[in-house]
């Protein structure tokens, strides 16, 4: 076996072990080590990705001495490797973008606990991406949930603790449903390994013996993961959690944690149940309806919001609605569009959160729109970055959001009329709503401050020069570059996603 094939295993174990290592480190060493781990995992994933593109077929890696149905196993294909690479990059950028805030907003003695959370979150995301076994997926879903909870409440204020409690309750409900679904699946198939379950399910479905438990379990898994990734009616925990936690947490939570669950759901669709059966059971239609609802309602809520962070958080609800709508279209093309939107939303949302933090800092820490007036002049880099992110969210060409919207529209056109019309109408409405609240914010950022606006508590905030926060500005530039890269090189990326999905089957 070639040495490169060890890399998924190395990256999971490295991040898992460094969580433990970090527990005895002090603040500075913990940060250095965390950066090292993120860089190392990024490098390994990149090498693996290039290698997988060359090889063109997936492989499995035995975890332990026993072959698959008995022991554990992880599996790497081109889509998994690419996702891991992308997630690592976004996590690294979000961490670096919020580094100053970590130091100021978190108690000094608890910073290393924060890095433990980040390391374990990384390992759980990697394991969710690479796993080939449903129970392993469940275990790492748990780690993901608890570490996300820690990320929310590390900044100890009343709002974050309340948000963390809400998140915990909703996530426990989601985990419970997921676990019940897995138990039923095990009961009717007798396997936990994804490929074996797929064989048994094809058999069971053809026989027609356990169809009702099968449908119920798929339903429970879908609803469980939808709750965890904040699909529209289950989004109540989201605005507080994203709006009041520290910047890196908000960026990571919105761009990675919920996306990990969505990736797991896609994996379950293709690797566990089989996409034909999923489409045949009509469960996708439910996801479709709730996705459409989320697209509209998330945007409406965002328009009514008067707090920039919460507005961006509500915009996440809308974007997750897009992703589920793509899943609900029930075609491979819809899935491709969804995965592309996972990428584009992850890169854009982290950019928006980090940029918003810079803008609020330039306005004396206030997140209200009145105080943000003209902050685009006070912190030029953050203003530019926020504008770029907003353009991408609205769907202006050259940015990634445009491509994902185009892919959604193409996928909808290929569908039957009953799904095509609602999709296109909702896409149009949602885009207009997106434009309303993002452009409103951008205009507000570049309105010169009038004298009537009352001064913030910190007085007139000074203009932040470009050289003052080199790391922060550099991160923003990289994030914009990532976004534009996704928007300009969309064709190779779409090809890569399609080949990855083919490898699933």
């Amino acid at each position, binding site marked *: 076996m070639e040495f490169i094939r060890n890399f998924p295993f190395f990256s999971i*174990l490295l991040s898992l072990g460094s969580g433990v*290592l970090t527990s005895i480190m002090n603040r500075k060493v913990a940060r250095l080590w965390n950066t090292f781990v993120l860089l190392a995992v990024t490098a390994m994933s990149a090498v693996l990705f290039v290698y997988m593109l060359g090889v063109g077929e997936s492989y499995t890696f035995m*975890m332990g001495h026993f072959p698959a149905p008995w022991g554990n196993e992880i599996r790497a294909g081109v889509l998994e490797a690419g996702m891991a690479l992308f997630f690592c990059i976004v996590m690294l950028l979000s961490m670096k973008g919020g580094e100053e805030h970590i130091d100021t907003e978190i108690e000094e*003695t608890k910073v290393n606990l924060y890095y*433990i959370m980040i390391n374990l979150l990384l390992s759980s995301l990697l394991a969710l991406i690479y796993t080939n076994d449903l129970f392993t997926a469940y275990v*790492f879903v748990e780690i993901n949930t608890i*570490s996300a909870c820690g990320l929310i409440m590390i900044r100890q204020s009343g709002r974050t603790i309340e948000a963390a409690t809400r998140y915990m309750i909703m996530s426990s409900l989601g985990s419970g449903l997921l676990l019940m679904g897995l138990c039923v699946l095990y009961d009717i198939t007798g396997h936990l390994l994804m490929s074996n379950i797929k064989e048994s399910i094809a058999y*069971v479905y053809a026989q027609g013996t356990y169809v009702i438990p099968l449908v119920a*379990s798929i339903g429970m898994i879908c609803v469980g993961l939808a709750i965890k990734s904040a699909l529209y009616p289950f989004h109540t925990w989201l605005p507080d959690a994203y709006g009041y936690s520290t910047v890196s947490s908000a960026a990571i939570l919105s761009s990675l944690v919920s996306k990990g669950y969505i990736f797991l759901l896609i994996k379950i669709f293709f690797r566990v149940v089989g996409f034909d059966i999923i489409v045949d059971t009509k469960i996708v239609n439910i996801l479709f309806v709730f996705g459409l609802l989320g697209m509209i309602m998330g945007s409406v809520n965002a328009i009514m919001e008067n707090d920039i962070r919460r507005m961006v958080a509500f915009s996440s609800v809308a974007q997750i609605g897009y992703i589920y709508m793509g899943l609900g279209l029930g075609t491979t093309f819809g899935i491709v569009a969804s995965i592309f939107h996972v990428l584009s939303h992850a890169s854009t949302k982290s950019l928006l959160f980090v940029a918003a933090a810079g803008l609020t800092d330039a306005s004396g820490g206030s997140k209200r729109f009145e105080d943000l007036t003209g902050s685009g002049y006070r912190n030029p880099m953050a203003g530019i970055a926020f504008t770029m992110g907003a353009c991408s969210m609205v769907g202006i060409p050259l940015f990634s959001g445009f491509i994902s919207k185009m892919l959604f529209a193409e996928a909808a056109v290929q569908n039957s009329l009953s799904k095509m019309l609602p999709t296109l109408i909702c896409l149009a409405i949602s885009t207009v709503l997106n434009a309303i609240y993002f452009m409103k914010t951008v205009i507000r950022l570049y309105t010169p401050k009038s004298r009537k606006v009352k001064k913030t508590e910190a007085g007139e905030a000074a203009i932040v020069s470009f050289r003052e926060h080199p790391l922060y500005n550099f991160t923003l530039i990289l994030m914009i570059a990532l976004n534009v890269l996704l928007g300009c090189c969309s064709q190779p990326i779409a090809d890569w996603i399609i080949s990855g999905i083919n490898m699933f089957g």
Partner: protein
Amino acid sequence: MSRLLSEQEYRKTKAFKVKRWYRGDKDPYIGRVELRPQKPFEEDVNTQKKRIHDEAILQRNIYDIEHNRKLMMFSKFYKVISVLFVFTLIGILLYMVSYLPPVGNAANPDNNEVATKYIEDAMKDTGAVNIVTGMILDYRAFDTLGESNVLFIATCTVLILLRVDSRSKKKEEEENDRLYEPKNDIILQKVAFFLVPMIIIFGIYVILNGHLSPGGGFSGGAIIGSGLILYVNAFGFKKIERFFTQKTYKWICFVALLFYCLAKTYSFYCGAHHLETGIPLGTPGDILSSGLILPLNICVGMVVACTMYAFYAMFRKGGF
């Protein structure tokens, strides 16, 4: 009644004390148990004002249902929907369960080659008599590695939430701590004197025999943890701090989990490349057998015991 001892000497014997206690003449607690009753909640005028203000706002915005139409509609809607939701869920689940394969039927789908191999070969493959331990620590060790990290991260989250780091607050917490238990409670102390060693030894037994009999690292660790909690309750934090402090906790957890990670990394690596690990399995049934399972069980047990105690200490006074 003839009495061999004089009255004064009789008063010193145990029999007299027991009799006195039995008659209820003297309360053995008086002068020995130090229990500070919890004071009624006191607050200064400013915080009280603020609280009353907050409560008024809360009352107006949240609980004043009669004047808030939207809220009234919402609360009614919520009640109806939640009841409906629960009943639908119960209905779906019951309906689904009736279609599941019957329990214990030989023709069930889950009675397949996977389970058969576990039952037939587990002893040979892993060297553990207890198949369950063999499964969780050898066949599916990756899941268990994740599971022990769940525990670790749960402790970290509790540390974030409850650990008190500033000096002044720590002192305050320690003073308040006396509210939660009587100090020098004789009954508790005597019972704990007998029970704690037995509980801890039983826990150690369960851990060390994890590969031979039911139990293992997690259950044994939980038992030891509850023993430690009983000890703290009876004798107070001062006594336990002579051998168990925050530092001990940190290092025990660190060493155990790191060993776990490294050992499993080594064994996964060897397994994936079809190499021999060089760890002897021993004869099944011996205490020193089944390769890595015994040390891993000990590690898990230590982590769990420390975690359980740490939870308790965190909840009580935000530190050790």
